[in-house]
């Protein structure tokens, strides 16, 4: 395994407004990523910014790794100043990634979540019903390519500047409740509804809504989560999320008692970087 390597930047171009496409070519052996995995990427050359930042693999082709990123704060600003020819360090691929879909599937991408979803579309061509939402049409990236790679594509923007006005989860709900009834579109007649898997990546608010939608309809869904990360490899415990489960109780010496809250809770923390970033949405305990 070669999950820590240097790479030469072969491109770092303005994609669209605040978005950039970073292409790097590893300078040594490296492991091949799968959809939904991510890399911790060095974003500057000094100690400020200090930590690497996590980015989903967007494309992997001809020994080039590509990342689609949105300029948000210090780290992504610094990254955007790096240029072709610069050398940076990467750690990855990290995390579990998406379990490969069997047959057709539904993909839900909110905003920059498309970066994580895209490799699914590319690997499983014409299998996805893609639901893609963003704040406005400028934030809908890779639209024509995504359309070509999908079986069908549904677009929405918060301001209605492209596609349906509103949240993409509305489009998803409608689709599930109306079109899904037409068996030809999704699966052979008679297939159980739960065979239809959903893959979702986007803001927490969107994922929570997706969670509601799929739970009431008993559909399997995998969601990719985000958390602040320091290490990306499971050691800092910075990136945890609540999932269903029971803490093991250990026999305690006399006079030492378990914290009360803890003993009665039915959730445990898992690391988004290690046990995730993709979780079965029904396991997630939203805060």
């Amino acid at each position: 395994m070669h999950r820590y390597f240097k790479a030469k930047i072969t491109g770092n171009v303005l994609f669209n407004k605040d978005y950039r496409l970073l292409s790097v070519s590893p300078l040594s052996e490296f492991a091949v990523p799968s959809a939904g995995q991510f890399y911790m990427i060095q974003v500057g050359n000094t100690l400020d910014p200090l930590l690497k930042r996590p980015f989903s693999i967007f494309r992997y082709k001809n020994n080039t790794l590509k990342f689609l990123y949105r300029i948000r704060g210090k780290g992504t600003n610094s990254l955007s100043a790096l240029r072709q020819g610069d050398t940076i360090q990467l750690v990855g691929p990290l995390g579990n990634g998406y379990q490969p879909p069997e047959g057709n599937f539904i993909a839900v991408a909110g905003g920059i979540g498309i970066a994580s979803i895209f490799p699914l579309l590319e690997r499983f061509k014409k299998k996805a019903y893609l639901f893609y939402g963003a704040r406005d049409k400028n934030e809908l990236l890779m639209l024509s390519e995504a359309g070509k790679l999908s079986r069908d594509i549904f677009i929405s923007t918060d301001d209605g500047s492209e596609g349906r006005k509103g949240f993409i989860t509305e489009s998803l709900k409608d689709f599930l409740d109306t079109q899904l009834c037409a068996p030809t579109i999704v699966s052979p007649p008679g297939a159980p509804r739960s065979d239809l898997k959903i893959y979702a990546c986007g803001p927490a608010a969107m994922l929570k809504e997706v969670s509601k939608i799929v739970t009431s309809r008993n559909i399997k869904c995998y969601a990719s989560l985000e958390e602040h990360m320091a290490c990306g490899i499971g050691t800092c415990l910075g990136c945890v999320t609540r999932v269903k489960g029971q803490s093991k109780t250990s026999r305690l010496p006399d006079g030492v008692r378990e914290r009360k809250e803890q003993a009665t809770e039915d959730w445990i923390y898992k690391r988004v970087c290690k046990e995730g970033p993709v979780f079965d949405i029904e396991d997630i305990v939203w805060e």
Partner: protein
Amino acid sequence: MGIKKEGFKKRKTSRGKTDKHEPRKPNMSVDIAGLRLKNPVMTASGTFGYGEEYSEFFDLNRLGAIVVKGLSIVPKKGNKTPRIVETSAGMLNAIGLQNIGVKAFIDEKLPFLRQFNTPVVVNFFGDTVKEYVCAAEDLSREAESAGGIHALEMNISCPNKQSGWIVFGTDPKIMKQVVSSVRKATRLPLIVKLSPNVTDISLMARVAEDAGADAVSLINTITGMAIDVKSRKPVLSNVIGGLSGPAVKPIALRMVWEVCKAVKIPVIGMGGIMNSRDALEFMMAGASAVAVGTANFVNPAATVDIIDGMERFMLQEGISDIIDIKGSLRV
């Protein structure tokens, strides 16, 4: 001090054997609290998990010692997220001491660590003196019966439930009590990890020494805070967190220098060490060994890069034994 003399003796023997015509590998081994380390580079607790994750990036046999994430007798879930936020040349963390507990560590993690010939230092803490003592006892029992635990490091930068949540390591009396109690509970080498959030770090180091510590390590994180101006909320769910990384290095180095002048027991220096030059600064200030924390997040191979860099420095400068660097600051 007896330990140190032994170290010198061993070195002399090994020196005699070396071929004088080849540029010989410098001797990097150090003795701390009765432990011989092959080099002075340890991992800082809480930044290295229980070792598993990093074993994929380099051979754990290369390390001077592995210090594991802090354990308590009662497993802890820790704080809500966000638990970390980057600051200028540093980071704040408020993990909340999440850990699997002493028992699960012994059952599930220790077998893995036993595979390596690198000493394992177990960092631990408690909410009460009783919890400290229980943890030390359980760990010592395991060390005696099955081995694999070579020293204990007490984290005293956590609040004491029984005295209004005053941090153990910021009050000399409370600190003395907890260190003495643990001292009685274990025969393993005992390292006391000092909190930097104090007026007089030398005093605290002396208290630890007097209470029976075999070594002190410092610095733990410095309490800090960050605010998100847009939402007008603290960035960390816990409001305050601990600052680590290069930002704190000048403070850590000063404290290590002060403590080295104040106590006779060995000092393990840490706080913002990112490269071999940083590590050498701490050694020159008087530290017998160093620990690398936040740097592991930035570069998973930071520890071995630092070991290699220190060795290169010694070769370049013609220093054959690391003992000649320790405390060599010219003031």
